[in-house]
């Protein structure tokens, strides 16, 4: 695995953008994640509600994040996650920004999302450690790509 490696203190902390890229205000989960990621030593950027996929990509690039974490519970992930990935590609950033997903995502959609590059796709009840170690792994990959 090697994914659960502790972050070396000399390294820059992981910068992560948390976003709910849909017309949806249910933000309980994202606030819990934001705090947990912060407690795990990450720098969390949360732009507030209703960012468009375009805004998410702009913020991610401006803020030089390692990871974009997007979460949806309203069933529109196939359309919207895809849009985020397309825009990321358009800006040639798909290699050095990792995208992870989560929310209410049916089992059957997970491989489809993996295929377009959105990994994780965790549902409610996933232990926080599992999510955090996945993000660390993806962040490492993204950084390795960048440098």
């Amino acid at each position, binding site marked *: 695995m090697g994914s659960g490696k502790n972050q070396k203190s000399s390294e820059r902390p992981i910068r992560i953008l948390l976003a709910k890229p849909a017309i949806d205000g249910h*933000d*309980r989960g994202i606030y819990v994640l934001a705090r947990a990621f912060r407690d795990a030593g990450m720098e969390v950027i949360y732009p507030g509600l209703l960012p468009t996929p375009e805004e998410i990509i702009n913020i991610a690039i401006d803020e030089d994040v390692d990871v974009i974490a997007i979460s949806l519970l309203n069933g529109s992930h196939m*359309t919207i996650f895809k849009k985020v990935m397309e825009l990321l590609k358009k800006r040639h950033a798909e290699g050095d920004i990792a995208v992870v997903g989560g929310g209410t995502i049916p089992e059957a959609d997970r491989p489809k999302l993996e295929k377009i590059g959105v990994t994780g796709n965790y549902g*409610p009840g996933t232990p926080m450690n599992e999510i955090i170690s996945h993000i660390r792994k993806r962040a490492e990959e993204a950084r390795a790509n960048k440098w």
Partner: protein
Amino acid sequence: MGKKAKTSATESYWSKKVAELSAPHRKGNAAYEKWHKNVLEPWLGKTVEGSEIREVYTKDDVAPQPDEMPGVYPFTRGIYPNMYIGKPWTMRMFSGFGTPEDTNTRLKYLLKHGETGLSIAFDEPTLYGIDCDNKRAEGEIGKCGVNVTSLKDMEVLFDGIPLDKVSTSMTINAPAIILFSMYIAVAQKRGIKPEMLSGTLQADILKEYIAQKEWFYPPEAHLRMIRDMMLYSVKNIPKWNYISVSGYHIREAGATAVQELAFTLADGFHYVDMGIEAGLDVDSFAQRISFFFDSSMNMFEEIAKFRAARRIWATVMKEKYGAKSDRSLKLRFHAQTSGYTLTWQQPLNNIARTALEALYTVLGGAQSIHTNSYDEALALPTEDAAKVALRTQQIIAEESGVLSPVDPLGGSYYVEALTKKMELQAYEYFDRIEKIGGVLEAIKKGYMQGEIADASYERQMRLENGDDVMVGVNKYREEQEKQINTLKISMRAQRTQRARIAQVKKARNESKVRLHLERLRVAMASSSENLVPYVMDAVKAYATIGEIVNVGREVYGEWKEPKII
């Protein structure tokens, strides 16, 4: 602390209540202490420290109460003398998905199977005032509820449903004034007069800023629209609950039971202040304020919460607002089982959770109930799953024997003590909110939002370390999850809705639309106008939700929430 006494010259009503309720009615609890030392500890063979919930409660835990009866002030035991004896609660299943045709079919299905009231769920684009033909709505049409873009959709949605006979509840927060106007317009087109309509608007915008986060404008603009609906309803639709003050979303966003109780009632009192400011006599409008609470997994806490809510409302309406009519003092509420407690893991377990939670609402005296379906952690419910949820209520009502007596837990040492404790904690919150500057100011400062986020994080940490259990999630997990069928909302809904709105736009009289939108703009700018007739004219001309909302966006601007992280 210490000798610092009265805060200022005029001690507030809330501080006084806090002092009144926190005064111990009796010193210590001799029977309990004796039992603890002489019976419990020898039995356990060790000494035990006190915890927040004691092993047992006694009459010393309950303030001596006059024999309170149901249907009598302060209504702790229920708002009607006979409660469910003779007539159970209204079984009102929240439903909506896809196109208006899809939802119309589901509503008729539920009515056929014994549902007794309607409750409509609208999709996110509708709730955020974004038309189905807007690019932003792509992929979200009909996903979380039914899509309504113009009056045409509303006509289809209620086709063949006797609006003069069923009561309809609509969850329509930010665009409430528009969907409310559409509902009346549909009825009028069918020759049904507004005064024959009965139903409820979930138009409580305060809880949107606190919890669910659906809004268009700054709070003052939405509150003005609520005032207008209040004034319009009081005058024209006497049986209409123009607002359902909602704790459900506050709880689901992560609040504790006490926070749900306190923030919801604080919002309720804010609407009362608003009605009085609008020049209404309190007894003319308070009777049509209704409530909506969550029912989560902790049995006694939920039951005590419902009982405390009734007692607080009655007490404050009488003491602080001087309401005289019993109807203003009675807190009527709808309850929904908790969506948060449902798990996608081992989804059939959710049937048990929902049944328990529904039972608590019955023991707590709800007027109407929605039971969640077991598949709702995964998707909107299938027809079969929704039927099981409805049957759950029917089983409670017709097999379990809980319809009588009224308030069977009244007099339980523990339930009474807990009711009082939660009541006190709610008053402490009212007092704190007032010190911040009132509900609106507290929202702008992110006070409630922060409290809820803290509580939600703590809960998550308790789950992470196993202090709290969710069966199938952090205990009794299974490696292989069995798949169940779930409802799929195809892109067909989007195509149908877009085709329909294109037709509507082609057929409508464009200059009439512009005229009514322009008149609405002028009315919006003058706060003394009642907006309902203006919105009504616009919807009747088939102006879309997005067009109407955008007029408001130009007049009022948008709202950015305070940062809490």
